[in-house]
């Protein structure tokens, strides 16, 4: 039996996380099809899916941004380098030896320093790159031959997509590093994080 449980992820946060996950996976799959990285799926279906998922993500983000600021949760992402060396040492070494995670999670500080940096990377770099270039492609691509270089915007969008894919791979793996391999995922479903002590 876990020593104690914390209610870490509120209902909206969980909804936001999973619907965003679904949309991002959809966007990556359809986007890389449009890009030509793989074939076999109809181009038009991929394009249509990509556009719908993009607008759905825009809508989701309008609510998410509102939620972050009204709930004050944005503070969770304020970067810090405090104790970051211990956290890095844990993932590079301690985790193999079965050590406990050096970071004590609380509802007010739910992300360890490495997570804060990673999510900040997503929110301040990957998302804006994809979003701004994506909106330009959605709204201004019809001017491609005259006003803007569609190619440059598309390259930026692609670069953002690869960064997102990189984040996705690391993120999914790190979810397995909780007390048990499924602990973090369960927490994101139920909201309750169980500590191992």
């Amino acid at each position, binding site marked *: 039996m876990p020593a104690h449980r914390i209610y870490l992820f509120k209902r909206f946060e969980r909804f936001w996380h999973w619907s965003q996950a679904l949309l991002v996976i959809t966007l990556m799959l359809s986007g890389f099809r*449009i890009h030509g990285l793989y074939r076999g799926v109809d*181009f038009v279906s991929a394009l249509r899916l990509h556009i719908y998922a993009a607008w759905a993500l825009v809508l989701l983000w309008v609510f998410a941004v509102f939620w972050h600021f009204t709930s004050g949760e944005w503070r969770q992402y304020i970067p810090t380098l405090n104790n970051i060396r211990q956290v890095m040492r844990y993932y590079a070494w301690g985790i193999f030896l079965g050590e406990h995670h050096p970071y004590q999670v609380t509802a007010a500080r739910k992300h360890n320093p490495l997570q804060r940096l990673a999510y900040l990377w997503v929110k301040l770099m990957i998302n804006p790159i994809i979003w701004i270039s994506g909106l330009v492609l959605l709204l201004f691509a019809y001017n491609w031959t005259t006003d803007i270089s569609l190619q440059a915007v598309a390259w930026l969008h692609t670069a953002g997509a690869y960064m997102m894919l990189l984040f996705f*791979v690391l993120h999914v793996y790190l979810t397995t590093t909780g007390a048990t391999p499924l602990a973090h995922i369960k927490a994101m479903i139920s909201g309750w994080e169980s500590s191992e002590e």
Partner: protein
Amino acid sequence: MAVTSIHAYRRACAMMSAAGLPDAAPLRRCRVIVMMLALAAFSPPTFASAPANPAATAASGELLHWHVVPQTRGPWTPTDHRKFKQLAGPFKRPEDVTAACLSCHTDAAKQVKSTIHWSWSKFDPKTGRMVGKRHVFNTFCANITSNEQFCTTCHVGYGNSKPGQFTPFEKLGDNHVDCLVCHDQSGTYHKIPFTGGNPAMTRTPVRPGCGEVYGTDKPYVEPADLALIAQSVGAPKRENCGVCHFYGGGGDGVKHGDLDSSLLNPPKSLDVHMDAHGLNFTCEKCHLTSDHRMAGGHYEVDAKPTALRYMRGAMHGGNPATCRSCHGAAPHHDGDLGSTINMHTRAIACQTCHIPQFARGGLPTKLSWDYSSAGKFGPNGTPLVINDKRGWNIYWGVKGSFKWGENVVPQYRWFNGTETWMNTGDKIHPDRNGIVDVNRIAGSPSDGKSRIWPFKIMHNNQPYDTVNKTLAVFHSFGFDDAAFTITGNWQKAISTGMKAAHLPYSGHFDFVPTQMYWPITHMVAPAEKSLRCAQCHTDGGRLQNIPGVYIPGRSADHQPWIERIGLLAVVMALLGVLGHGAIRTILWLRRRSRTQEH
């Protein structure tokens, strides 16, 4: 939507009553339930379409169907020309028919003579040069000069019937305008080669094999009944335009690739506008004509029209022979991807997607002609003729060898509508592949005037003066011994042709590869048969070699370093987490077995 809900509610209640529910209270309950169901079912659309803005209405499909009344095929004139005494005949000369026409249609000859149909010559303001058959080369029979008696079979005039003697069109009187070739509705009017554009007035020998043009497969043509023809006149039908424009270059479909006799009675799949059982457009529906001036034409291609749609009563000034003059700039309304497709109209001509192939009507078109191989005679002393398995003529001693194609995929180029034509006497400028462009097309992704257009590119290998570096004007057609089709003697044919063109000839000739661009604009397929997105949005697609546009799905447009670094980072990350996970698992298993040992 609210109305629909109420209807649904009333229907449901009526059904309930009919089902035998006389009691008021259950009926009321049912009403409430049905009302709620109806509201639930219909409220989202109600919300979505409540503000009845015009755009939303216009986008609702129904209103945008083309309600063009199918044309009945008649003379399209309120006049029965059989009732005119002037046309009673009999006519001995076609010029007399013209005089009769002009006795009522007083200015018709002046109008026709002001057009390129008559002059074969016009000034091209885009290049500051003269264009028209009188001046330019082509890659079929190459040139008109010295061949006028033959070529004027497709001239809207009479009066060059004397062999070896050509009277320039501007010196011909008004009664030499040929009204009948465009206005005959009897189907019996045929202009006969080597008579300078006249119909047969006596039994006239012709070469069998071009029955569509002569109206007979016999080796002679019977005299034309000019009175019957004159009394039949009406607005031109496709047959009238087609007799020249379908058979140019020496036979059905030979020249254009997108114009041949399959358009006389086409199915919808061949041409959505000319569909004989649908819209049934005549040529002039697009090539709108007033005062005998036709809109559109190869010398005035509007590659990127900017004028708005034609609207009754509104000033226009644009070219009606453009898709945009009817369909507007944003023609794809329906479906959720309409605006995405509309983005393409900035850079891609409508024809590029909507004419997926040309020569689709069951007739092949000529793709290359090699004059250098001409001159072979068969064992019986007549020019050698070779047909392939499909019956397509691939060699003819008087012309050379040919390549044909059916359902041909066009070539695509940036095109701004400007073509620089090689006039007789111009020096040749072969490109780096040694090919001379007879009409060099201009266009680029960045000039703001170009779009990507489909072309038929017609190749030849035609004679040129190796010293003066000019394409040869040569005498092909005639009954004299200098005519190439009679004797197969290039030296005589070229020196006669050059002399007639008043050009110097060194006496030395050879053959140079030439090519000619034909913008493809007819045989517009129905929307469902147009190009699919993935036919360009892929590697090796239709627009593979088109520069200056980013085509998602075409990997040549990717930034290679983004791809390399991006994929490398992702692969490294995958390997990294797999390794990390493996070590974790192994060490965890070791720890667990140790715990169990203790």
